[in-house]
């Protein structure tokens, strides 16, 4: 009876297998570690991620390789996003090291194991070519994150945030599943490429398909955190321990982008007119709500949460302009689409870079018993530490989209795609909201530079943190001066991975 069983090609999934194995090993090792600081665990986790990055590059073929009966795909987009993912998680874990040590309930090996499982979940999402794989990845990521949010178990706010995240997350997963089942009903395939083939060929029952699409988009919108599915973002960002907020706010955006590409572009490109119109509404609403609500915040984490909503809205602009049947000649369509999607990808990657830096700054100023997440905690930072104030200045101006920082080029490339698709009005809406957004980023700069410090405690920062935050800030400036390489990487990755 085993005659038909073929051992799947494991090579494309080697990093996933490795990280799962290591997470289990680290969980075991944690049992015997006596050291309160869990240095061994920390080092092992970081080495695992580093090894994953090496494996990823080593096993990369540059081709689209499917395995596990086409459920799992390894292509350039997956390679690139995963390498950025590992780097992000490595940086995040470095940033959170001191914070976690200062807070007893979190200083356990589980923090690192959960981080690894969450990373594995994101990797599966990025490489998914099957509705179930997508779902499995999302659930693995989400369940790990729920636990991480609640890790500071004595904190009421954290527990509340975890509950909220869990309930809403479960709802969104439900919607996603429901949408997937509808699409399965319409096309008879759970495989993303299979769905696409069916739609390009025989077509499908339109009503059922669109019904499924609506639920699918709603589920994705929840994972991306765009209006009106954004309710969880401010509360979770605010309530979660800053270390976890940093984790939630950075790496999962890469994975969410990947599943949007896989599901909507690779799977449902033929239905682009439908989902583009949905995404336009989501995008404009997100930019409006995100930017306007951010102005009213006094808590930096909450402000960054709303800023995340608005950034995801802006990023969606790149995705909605990919296919516009009325404006572009047919033979140019793939180039227009590639141009648009790669600009969105560039936006996501740079956004993760900026947001990691901004939360890193909060962690840098935090110390035992003090969170440094209120805007007023940054008062007069320029007098306390001109260097770190300068780094935060770079991050804020970059998020506001002021050159020479990379945030400008991210906005520029998306706007370029929007104008190229002929939707100038959309570009104007986008810039009006980024103008509004500039206000609250400027306010952070104002607080750091124009105000007098309340708190004059000297800032003691460990060397690794110092180096890393600086490197993060300088990377934002450096990619701003020379953005070409990263842009081309995004184009190449998507060009070799999407079926346009």
């Amino acid at each position, binding site marked *: 009876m085993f005659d038909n069983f073929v051992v799947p090609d494991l090579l494309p999934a080697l990093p996933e297998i490795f990280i799962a194995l290591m997470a289990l090993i680290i969980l075991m090792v944690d049992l015997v570690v006596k050291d309160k600081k869990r240095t061994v665990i920390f080092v092992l986790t970081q080495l695992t991620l580093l090894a994953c990055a090496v494996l990823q590059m080593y096993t990369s073929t540059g081709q689209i390789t499917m395995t596990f009966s086409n459920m799992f795909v390894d292509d350039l987009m997956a390679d690139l996003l995963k390498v950025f993912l590992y780097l992000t998680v490595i940086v995040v874990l470095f940033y959170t090291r001191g914070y976690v040590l200062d807070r007893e309930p979190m200083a356990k090996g589980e923090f690192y194991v959960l981080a690894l499982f969450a990373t594995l979940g994101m990797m599966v999402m990025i490489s998914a070519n099957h509705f179930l794989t997508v779902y499995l990845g999302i659930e693995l990521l989400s369940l790990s994150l729920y636990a991480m949010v609640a890790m500071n178990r004595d904190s009421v706010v954290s527990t509340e945030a975890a509950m909220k995240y869990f309930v809403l997350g479960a709802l969104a997963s439900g919607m996603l599943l429901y949408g997937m089942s509808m699409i399965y009903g319409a096309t008879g395939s759970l495989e993303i490429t299979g769905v696409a083939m069916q739609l390009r060929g025989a077509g499908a029952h339109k009503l059922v398909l669109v019904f499924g699409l609506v639920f699918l988009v709603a589920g994705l919108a929840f994972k991306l955190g765009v209006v009106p599915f954004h309710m969880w973002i401010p509360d979770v960002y605010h309530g979660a321990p800053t270390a976890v907020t940093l984790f939630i706010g950075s790496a999962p955006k890469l994975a969410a982008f990947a599943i949007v590409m896989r599901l909507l572009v690779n799977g449902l490109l033929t239905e682009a007119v439908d989902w583009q119109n949905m995404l336009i509404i989501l995008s404009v609403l997100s930019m409006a709500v995100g930017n306007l609500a951010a102005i009213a915040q006094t808590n930096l984490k909450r402000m960054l949460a709303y800023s995340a909503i608005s950034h995801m809205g802006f990023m969606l602009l790149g995705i909605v302009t990919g296919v516009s049947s009325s404006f572009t000649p047919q033979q140019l369509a793939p180039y227009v689409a590639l141009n648009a999607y790669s600009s969105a990808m560039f936006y996501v990657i740079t956004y993760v870079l900026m947001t990691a830096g901004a939360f890193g700054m909060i962690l840098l100023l935090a110390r035992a018993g003090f969170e440094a997440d209120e805007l007023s905690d940054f008062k007069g930072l320029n007098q306390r530490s001109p260097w770190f104030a300068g780094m935060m200045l770079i991050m804020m101006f970059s998020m506001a989209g002021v050159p020479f920082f990379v945030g400008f080029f991210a906005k520029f490339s998306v706007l370029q795609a929007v104008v190229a698709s002929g939707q100038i009005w959309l570009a104007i809406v986008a810039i*009006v909201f980024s103008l509004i957004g*500039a206000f609250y980023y400027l306010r952070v700069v104002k607080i750091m530079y124009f105000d007098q410090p309340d708190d004059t405690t000297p800032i003691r920062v460990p060397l690794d943190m110092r180096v890393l935050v600086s490197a993060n800030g300088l990377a934002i400036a450096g990619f701003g001066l020379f953005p070409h390489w990263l842009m*081309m990487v995004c184009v190449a990755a998507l060009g070799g991975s999407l079926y346009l």
Partner: protein
Amino acid sequence: MANTPLLSLAVWVPIVAGLLVLMTGSERNAPLARALALIGAIAGFAVTIPLWTGFNPASGGMQFVELKPWIERYSVNYHLGVDGISMLFLLLNSFITIIVVLAGWKVIEQKVAQYNAAFLIMSGLMNGIFCALDGVLFYVFFEASLIPLYLIIGVWGGPNRVYAAFKFFLYTLAGSLLFLIALIYLYIHSGGSFAILEWHKLPLNLTAQIWLFLAFLVAFAVKVPMWPVHTWLPDAHVEAPTGGSVVLAAIALKLGAYGFLRFSLPIAPDASHELSGFVIALSLIAVVYIGFVALVQEDMKKLVAYSSISHMGFVTLGFFMFSAIGIEGALVQMISHGFISGAMFLCIGVMYDRMHSRRIADYGGVVNTMPKFAALFVLFAMANAGLPATSGFVGEFMVILGAVKFNFWVAFAAASTMILGAAYTLWMVKRVVFGAVTNAHVAELTDIDRREFFILALLAACVLWMGVYPQPFTEVMHASVNDLLQHVANSKIK
């Protein structure tokens, strides 16, 4: 020597110097920071001198061109070059930077390194604006130069500095974002090129031209500033430290006007003709109405700020009459205004450092205690009022000459500035400088020291030189202005 990238040096020498100054760090190193800043500013000026000496005035095209690919993904190039229109502004800007560093020498005691670094970096960025020949490069410099000025106003400014800094930043950003869309539209319409000179040749229909023109107008009108989007300027001037006011008046305002010549006129010539009446009307409102507004000011800095708006109205007026004498007059006016308004703000700064007041009513009879200063101040005031033999006269006269040919009533309204300008400037001088000593504070004033005298005398020399012998200035712009006019005369509608 021929292959030295002079323009790159003009841009990056001040920026690198600024970063070096920043590295001196704490207050203990303040003297070092000042010295380094001065060296940087002088070096920055020195590298621009060969631009003047090596410039070929017979050619109207771009000179000292540098072209390297920068972001090939969007065919953005690092493309620099100057013509007769932009070259002088690089010199002016670099020169003013030296003045600013000197002016803050003793006055600024807090965060000395950051102060000087901000000015140096801004100087480099503004040089970049004047020589960028690529749309994105221009925009990047244009936007980035907001950051240092925002910090200068906010950190070293007056009591209401936060409001002024935000207003300045958001106003300018609001204007320039539409400009960005216009640039991207041109990029796509031209088939993927950001080269400004290519855009000059790009055929466009009238509707597209008008939309582009309006987008440019918003961006540059805010920057100039033109009535009715001028309200950020008086606030920014009043709150900024002296150095900030000087750079703002002398250089930053010129960026908007320069933008008209580099973008609006050559890219949308038909729309420029179509809408010239509108721009001229706005300019005349600025000249006349803002002139009256200046008359009633009680704060000296505000008065000079309004006078700047009025003078810049002259500049935009000169541009949109499409005559050589009008544009050259406007350009002369821009440079002359750079010297004069800079000097006026320095003079007010000198008094403010001693009295900590800018209210006209707090002064009176300054000539009795500060005779050397009073002489220079009166000279600059006369220049501001457009007295012959000062640089202020040359530009205004040329623009009025152009206006008479264009339309008598326009000229009539424009010429009223001769009276209004004299009225508000001289009335202020009368109240501040002349008469008997009005109060004990004025009686205790000490005259300017050698540093202050040196700065003001340097500017006075420039004002007089340009007033008596403006030919070296007009000579270099002649060919470029003629090229521009020829270009603007040709319709782009095909």
